[in-house]
């Protein structure tokens, strides 16, 4: 109960702050739109190529963009944490009796809300380019995207608390992000690649999300890949949240 209340209070603080910073919002909106507008034309010649199911390239490409968006919005959470650490804000919050989970999750929740709004815009623009919406699939996909963003957000926040300063944090996050993104087939399906690449991808949680997202985008919900995505993301999310809460509870020396 107290955790819910504290999460609500902190969520409010972060969402108000985000709305007060329109520059940030414009940048956030423009990135996925640019992907759609500048990348989609390149895909025109792809239908029919091995690995692309029928139903238009956007059914493949747009879910990838949504996954990318969730991944990026989560893993950038720690930059704010570093700033708050250095301004003494985190310390001020940690000395109050506020729930440690709330201190972690409040800002992540506000990130989820803005991400969902961006997703809606991307889908709307996608429809303009010929994306076909399957509502039920999209709803399930939204839940998966929340899981991924929370997972990455908690990981990024805890990494920020451990590394404490911007250069070390950026090095760790970038070092981890690049292989994860390349091995997930975000922009092009991994199934186009050689065997070793496909095997390696199976160690990557993002890969499962991307594959499930493509299935959901064409309206296939009760499929093995969707179950697999939940089976990978739910436990991982729980573990990382628990770890990150523990980092908040212990010293941030």
């Amino acid at each position, binding site marked *: 109960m107290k955790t819910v209340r504290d999460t609500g209070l902190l969520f409010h603080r972060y969402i108000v702050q985000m709305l007060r910073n329109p520059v940030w919002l414009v940048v956030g909106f423009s990135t996925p739109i640019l992907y759609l507008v500048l990348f989609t034309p390149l895909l025109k010649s792809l239908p029919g190529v091995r690995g692309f199911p029928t139903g238009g390239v956007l059914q493949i490409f747009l879910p990838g963009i949504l996954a990318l968006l969730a991944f990026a919005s989560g893993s950038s959470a720690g930059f704010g944490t570093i700033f708050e650490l*250095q301004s003494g*804000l985190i*310390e*001020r919050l940690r*000395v109050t*009796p506020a729930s440690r989970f709330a201190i972690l999750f409040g800002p992540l929740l506000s990130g989820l809300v803005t991400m969902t709004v961006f997703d809606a815009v991307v889908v709307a623009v996608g429809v303009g380019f010929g994306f076909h919406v399957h509502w039920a699939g999209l709803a399930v996909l939204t839940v998966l995207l929340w899981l991924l963003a929370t997972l990455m957000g908690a990981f990024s926040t805890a990494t920020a608390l451990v590394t404490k300063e911007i250069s070390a944090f950026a090095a760790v996050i970038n070092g981890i992000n690049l292989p994860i993104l390349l091995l997930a087939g975000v922009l092009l399906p991994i199934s186009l690649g050689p065997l070793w690449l496909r095997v390696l991808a199976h160690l990557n949680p993002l890969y499962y999300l991307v594959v499930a997202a493509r299935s959901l985008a064409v309206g296939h919900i009760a499929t093995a890949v969707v179950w697999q995505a939940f089976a990978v993301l739910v436990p991982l999310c729980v573990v990382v949240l628990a770890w990150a809460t523990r980092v908040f509870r212990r010293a941030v020396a």
Partner: protein
Amino acid sequence: MDSIITTHELKKSFRSPRGSVDAVRGVSFDVARGEIFGFLGPNGAGKTTTLRMLTTLLPIDGGTAVVAGCDVAHRPKAVRARIGYVSQLGGADAMATGAENLVLQGRLYGGDLATVKARAEALMEILDLAEFAHRKVKTYSGGQRRRLDVALGIIHEPEVLFLDEPSTGLDPQNRANLWDHVRALRDRGTTIFLTTHYLEEADALCDRLVIMDHGEIVVEGTPRDLKRQVAGESVVLSLRDADGAGERASALLGAQPYVRELSDEGDQVRLYVEDGGEALPQILRLLDAEHIGVRSMHLSEPTLDDVFLRQTGRSLRDAGSGTGDEGRAA
């Protein structure tokens, strides 16, 4: 004594790839309910580290601490509910207004919206912040910001308020103003624990204090008692530099019965005497007879710096980076 903070052999070391630092090496002290208690020490003495252990922010490596009746290591939540803490950095949200900061803080301490709003308004009135209540904190001056930090620390009416270097970076006027607020807070019953490296601040503000150096408590007492321990007054002689004048003067004066203690600081000699008025003419006569030229002579009541000097052999003004308004290190 009705103690609100009791520590016993508190210890903390930090390990890093470059070796370990014993930041706090076993400190024991008591703080009485309702007093202003100070930690005075140079940069790196371990003041902030001790404070962070007492406020549940840093795990304790050894020893025990009880704050407001609760053991810090075992009941951190209970401690948090009873204390307020203003860190060296402050930690107000620069993008929000002062009022918003206060309301969020009060609510995180469990207050309901109406109560917290009323309390925030009253506090801003008391701390002369009412005028800026609805301005973003990033537009506040240093003094206004520090007062807001204090308000954030007391929004929930804690039993003990911890202030880490409350007046660092403030001009003398703002500093005096902050002292008045801190005293008023004590008079309303809050116990205040503060750290400082300003001698004047420790002297003027604290009811009792400890002097800390290299992670250890050097001495403890009221400013008055501490200065009385040094005994008498200090005389600083600045000598004309001629063939070891300092050494000759030290040898000569050290042998005089009225000189209690003496330290040779190169081009000047500092001595402690029972009665300065009586000693000065004698000192001058003596030096004159030995043809030791005196450039200047300066008599002063003992300060806490003399206490520090006597205990550690160094001046607090030289140790660490002294008493200026730099020193935000660590």
